């Protein structure tokens, strides 16, 4: 079976999101002068995590469906 692209996309953006959230939480707000005083790492990290989770959700659902189909055929 071919690799489901949603899996690596979901993983990659979840990891990116997690990295940014963690980094955003440990950096003081003074570090965000250039981004107009907004902790963009934290907020955008959350968005990326959300996107990654949705992609992973799709991929895992498709995988479960494929498995069910296989099982149904075996029976």
């Amino acid at each position, binding site marked *: 079976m071919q690799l489901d692209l949603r899996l690596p996309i979901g993983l*990659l953006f979840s990891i990116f999101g997690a990295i940014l959230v963690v*980094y955003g939480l440990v950096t003081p707000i003074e570090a965000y002068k250039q981004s107009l005083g907004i902790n963009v790492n934290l907020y955008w990290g959350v968005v990326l995590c959300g996107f990654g989770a949705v992609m992973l959700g799709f991929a895992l659902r498709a995988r479960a469906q494929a498995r069910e189909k296989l099982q149904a055929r075996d029976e």
Partner: protein
Amino acid sequence: MTVPHPRTTIRRVGYRPYRPPRPSPLAWPFRSVPIPLTQSIQLGAVDWIILVTYFAFVLGIGAALKRGMKSSNDFFMSGRNIPAWISGLAFLSANLGAQEVMGMAASGAKYGMMTSHFYWVGAVPAMVFVGVFMMPFYYGSKARSVPEYLKLRYDEKTRTFNAFSFATMTVFSSGISMYAMAKLLNLLLGWNFNVSLWASAAIVLAYIFLGGLTSAIYNEVMQFFLIVLGFAPLVFLGLRDAGGWSGLMSRLDLVATQSHNAAGQPYAAGAWASAWHHMGTPASNPMGVEWFGMVMGLGFVLSFGYWCTDFLVVQRAMVAKDEQAARRVPLIAAVPKMLFPFLVILPGMIAIALTYKAGETGFALPVKGNAFDYDMTIPLMLKHYFPTGLLGLGLTALMASFMSGMAGNVTAFNTVWTYDIYQSHIARNRSDAHYLWMGRMATVFGIVLSIMTAYMAQHFNNIMDMLQLVFAFVNAPLFATFLLGMFWKRTTGHGAFTGLLSGTFAAAMHHGLTIPVGAESLFKGGWIGPVLHTYPSEMAQNFWTAIWSWTTCFAVTILISLLTKRTKTDEELRGLVYSLTERHDEGHLPWYQRPIWLGAMILVAVTLLNLAFL
């Protein structure tokens, strides 16, 4: 797009990418402080982690796909088994290289809202056309490449002509892409030019060698999401800094009234903020073109020529899993394409608006000579607004799009080389394993040639300019050949071939006999001697070169076809010509999956967008 931005690219658009019109002398004593480019960005550890994670994924995908690469069909055509949404995003992404992104932002700064024509006039209608009308022939004919379609429809010489010019262009485009990236990384991050060049080439080579076209397509889709998610915060921060939408618009009025055209008159206040209002005459808008030349040259000849005949994008639709999916591919791509101006043009408009209020906010475009250095818009905005962390994401997006630009060209090259040149002229009737091996070898030498091109670009700028010009001449007439081939069964091989040559010749003549205002080099036109016409801008000249070339090819092809005998019977042309191909009944599909309805909805939406930014 469409049609890639001039200065930074040599993409196979059917014309010579326009150069910006003469740099308009800055009329206004602006207060902008040039950002010193020599001061490179310092990456933090977290930026490095993001960058390295991305490359690990890229190589991992290639390795994971390796098991599936058993035949040449898997390697070159992804086994014709790619879901429509993936092909659709790859179709879009193949055109969305970093040079395109940076070039469109540069144009956004230079021409304002009019840059949207490259999307809403110069791309979306052609994408709908290729999906609704052309895909059935490309897909239904089972041709494996665009040149191969020409062989089936016309003859061997037309195919070979197209295969050679296309293969050469892909190598040069990929080389230019490598060069641009290595140069940018050197400028921005202080990285060594040679190291950047060879490292990026090695990564691209590794993942195509392993996973073939599928690997390139998967990476293009990842790049699509990276660009969207990497640049969206930039638009948000920039817009906020500019005082929101209304703040941006009032600043753009200032930009317009303080800039002036070649004759020294200032533009009307809305010139940067509206797409159509100031297109009555070339002198009243910053692009220096009038509506007719823009709609015919860009919207018809160049745009249809690029989206309908360029194998780099068409290949992405050809590998869809069935004909219905193949027809939906360009339509799926058209939806994000419509929205891209907000992601890539808007930052440029924001950048120029902020530059004119520099002193208050801090961001300003740097100055080069007597004009702004527009090409650096995106990298400098990333540098200005993105803190460590997000900066890693933005740079990864930029590098990913440079590299998928190379990969797209290399995969198109190895296919055309192996099928249309090697298999048809050098080694016929070999085993499939042999062609798979040749595909991998073609990948290696395609990349080696690209590296050589990159060094050539570094040393001989003029050679690049000249090649770019020649390619444009070769490509401009191609759409006439396809249009006649698909919709008029009487078109003959001799007609098509002669038409193509005449169209190329007409493009060269037109370019040689006209110049844009303020041309200082023969590469810009007038190299034949007498100058018959002076265009108000280089863009106008390019649009009209395309119009002349297309019209000549169209007329000559018809004429010669009528004078020569048909060599292909109706039976042989079945599936290749509209009138001889049975239409599939699509009654069983729900309406939202029927190409004709999807296409109609997209055209309505794009019309509304044009009206909204009239």
